[in-house]
């Protein structure tokens, strides 16, 4: 049962890119509750040295046990931390998600064309219903400031004292993953700071949220990076991370790992429509293996003013501003009709990482590449009307196309070609069966 549950969870995370948890921190559990962070969603807004990071989390466990230690590249003050809107991150996710497009073959006996496109949307969400009491705050000597932002109690640890972080956490009954000392130590030596966020149940009840809203931090630093090392410590196996970079100029890529485009614009059999999530997960698994588990994958790169086809509407200037895109005006006419924002380029990166294959934190750079890229998969439905002419030629062509799609799908996903063929409704099968059986062995 447990295995099934794990697999199901992974499916959600990969296929829909929605079920996620906070990233760069490690979760610390009170008492013996085991908490794991398996996947995360991070929005990185960056222009010059100014950065706004939004960490959406899909924490699975009792809220009272939720605590996250977040390293930030520089000293931060109270005003630099904010609690964001989860629906905007979900909107960004939907807008950038890999999409499935379907086309319908025209009547082979007539000359007209029509198509419609549909995008993958059904994105299951995990919702936290648990309410629990928060343990009393403990203000040890290492705490510089403590305040409540939204439903979170935030403890900012001061520069000098943060090296007592480990001791403080241990004194406060937090369970630390093994090896945390070394990692925390290395961050401290690089002048990074930490803050701890816990859920304030009283505030949460007052606000009425049933889930944890994303935490946002604004800071100025020359470091364009994401600390992932802490995250590898207490995770069970590999973790999924989605990074949405919002920049002014162009695509974002990692400088210390390969950034690879996922295969896109592929024709796939029609049955994939019913199992797009499985298809996408299998394809991602396969590509991770092809790249020896060492690559970061590009899933979307686009000017935020438009999309084609749109998996969801582009984000409004207001929404982008809430995510921290500080260089666009948040007001201008947005009350009448939300306009897509100009001058914002989005990059969606997807990485599956563990300590072995990703020993170093992710370091990014903004490139001048403004070429649009999207994960797009195409279904072509054969024409299924009453023929007014001889369509055997058309049917043969379609069967050949279906066979090509089957092989392509097998290549992309590693699925068994016979299983795939069994699921495909080959057109004119009755006629096809007249073909000698050996024709399909080596084809």
């Amino acid at each position: 049962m447990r295995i099934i549950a794990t697999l199901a969870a992974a499916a959600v995370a990969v296929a829909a890119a929605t079920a996620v948890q906070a990233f760069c921190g490690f979760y610390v559990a009170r008492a013996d509750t085991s908490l794991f962070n398996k996947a995360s969603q991070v929005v990185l807004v960056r222009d010059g040295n100014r950065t706004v990071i939004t960490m959406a989390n899909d924490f699975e466990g009792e809220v009272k046990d939720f605590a996250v230690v977040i390293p930030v590249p520089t000293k931060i003050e109270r005003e630099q931390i904010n609690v964001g809107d989860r629906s905007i991150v979900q909107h960004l996710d939907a807008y950038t998600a890999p999409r499935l497009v379907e086309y319908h073959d025209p009547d082979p006996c007539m000359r007209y064309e029509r198509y419609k496109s549909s995008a993958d949307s059904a994105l299951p969400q995990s919702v936290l219903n648990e309410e629990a009491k928060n343990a009393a705050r403990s203000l040890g000597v290492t705490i510089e400031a403590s305040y409540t932002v939204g439903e979170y109690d935030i403890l900012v640890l001061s520069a000098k004292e943060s090296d007592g972080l480990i001791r403080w956490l241990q004194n406060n009954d937090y369970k630390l993953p093994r090896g945390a000392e070394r990692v925390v130590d290395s961050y401290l030596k690089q002048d990074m700071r930490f803050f701890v966020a816990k859920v304030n149940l009283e505030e949460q009840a007052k606000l009425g949220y049933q889930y944890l809203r994303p935490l946002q931090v604004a800071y100025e630093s020359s470091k364009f990076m994401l600390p992932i090392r802490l995250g590898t410590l207490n995770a069970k196996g590999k973790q999924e991370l989605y990074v949405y970079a919002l920049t002014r100029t162009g695509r974002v890529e990692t400088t210390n790992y390969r950034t690879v485009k996922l295969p896109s614009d592929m024709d796939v059999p029609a049955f994939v429509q019913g199992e797009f999530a499985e298809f996408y997960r299998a394809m991602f698994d396969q590509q991770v293996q092809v790249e020896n588990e060492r690559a970061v994958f590009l899933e979307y790169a686009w000017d935020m003013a438009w999309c084609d086809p749109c998996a969801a509407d582009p984000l409004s200037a207001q929404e982008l501003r809430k995510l921290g895109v500080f260089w666009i005006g948040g007001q201008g006419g947005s009350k009448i009709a939300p306009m897509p924002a100009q001058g914002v380029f989005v990059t969606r990166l997807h990485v599956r990482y563990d300590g072995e294959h990703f020993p170093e934190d992710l370091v990014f750079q903004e490139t001048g590449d403004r070429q649009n890229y999207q994960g797009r998969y195409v279904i072509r439905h054969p024409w299924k009307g009453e023929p007014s002419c001889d369509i055997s030629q058309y049917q043969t062509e379609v069967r050949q196309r279906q066979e090509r799609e089957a092989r392509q799908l097998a290549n992309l996903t590693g699925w068994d070609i016979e299983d795939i063929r069994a699921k495909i409704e080959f057109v004119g099968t009755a006629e096809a069966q007249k073909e000698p059986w050996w024709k399909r062995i080596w084809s």
Partner: protein
Amino acid sequence: MNTRNGLLATLRDPRYYQIAVLSLLLGYGIAVLDFGIRWQYALLIVITALVVQFAGTLYAKLPRFDPLSPLITSLSLTLLLRTDEAAIAALAAGLAIGSKFLLRFRGKHIFNPANFALVSLMLLSDRVWVSSGQWGSAALGAFALACLGFLVLTKAKRAETTIAFIVFYGALLFGRALWLDYPFSIPLHQVQNGALLIFAFFMISDPRTTPNTAIGRVLHAGLVASVAYTIQFVFYQPNGPILALIICALTVPLIDMFMQGRIYRWEQVVDRRISSTKGVF
């Protein structure tokens, strides 16, 4: 007999090996790594470089047109420069070769041509970038690159620049790992960067823009390594080595002033009778 000697002499020119290795890398990059090098741009860069070299040959009244050096510069540029704009690709080649003829000091050009073009375009335009992570860090690939590069270097007989750079930079990375209590997998990962190795074997090693003496070259390599490290790990900016090389290029004439040595000439291996009184390009 004469033809045979001529052929042998030609084969002894290390630049043929260099061109072969760089082409191999380019082929690997396009076919296996698929990191978006457009062959049209590669061609554009090569043609522009050759045309500018030809113009430069006339301008400097050189005894003969030499296509090998601009070809090497074009290949290095193609491997490292990323842009969406054809005009920028052509401009890069023009700047690279042009700098050889115009920016000179005491009979040598000051900057490595490809390095000069890369840095000046990165400063001038936001449509140019270097994808240092795109070579990946597969240990085997790094090893193959290093060996191939070494072949070029031993032919060029100036391996000390590369070795010194790798030793200095490696020492800094491992030193940092010790200081930060990093597992050694981190500096190892950093050293296995394909772009870093291409830089070490094909850019900093350029015998024409390094000091004339062996000690001078080691000193220069150490300087480049330190500046690269500072850019990368103190200021947290990408492309440390490439920026460091251009900054340190200005120290080469200084080092040469204090340490006398012979100016390297590609041609001396090929034919000792042909030597230019105008300096070497």
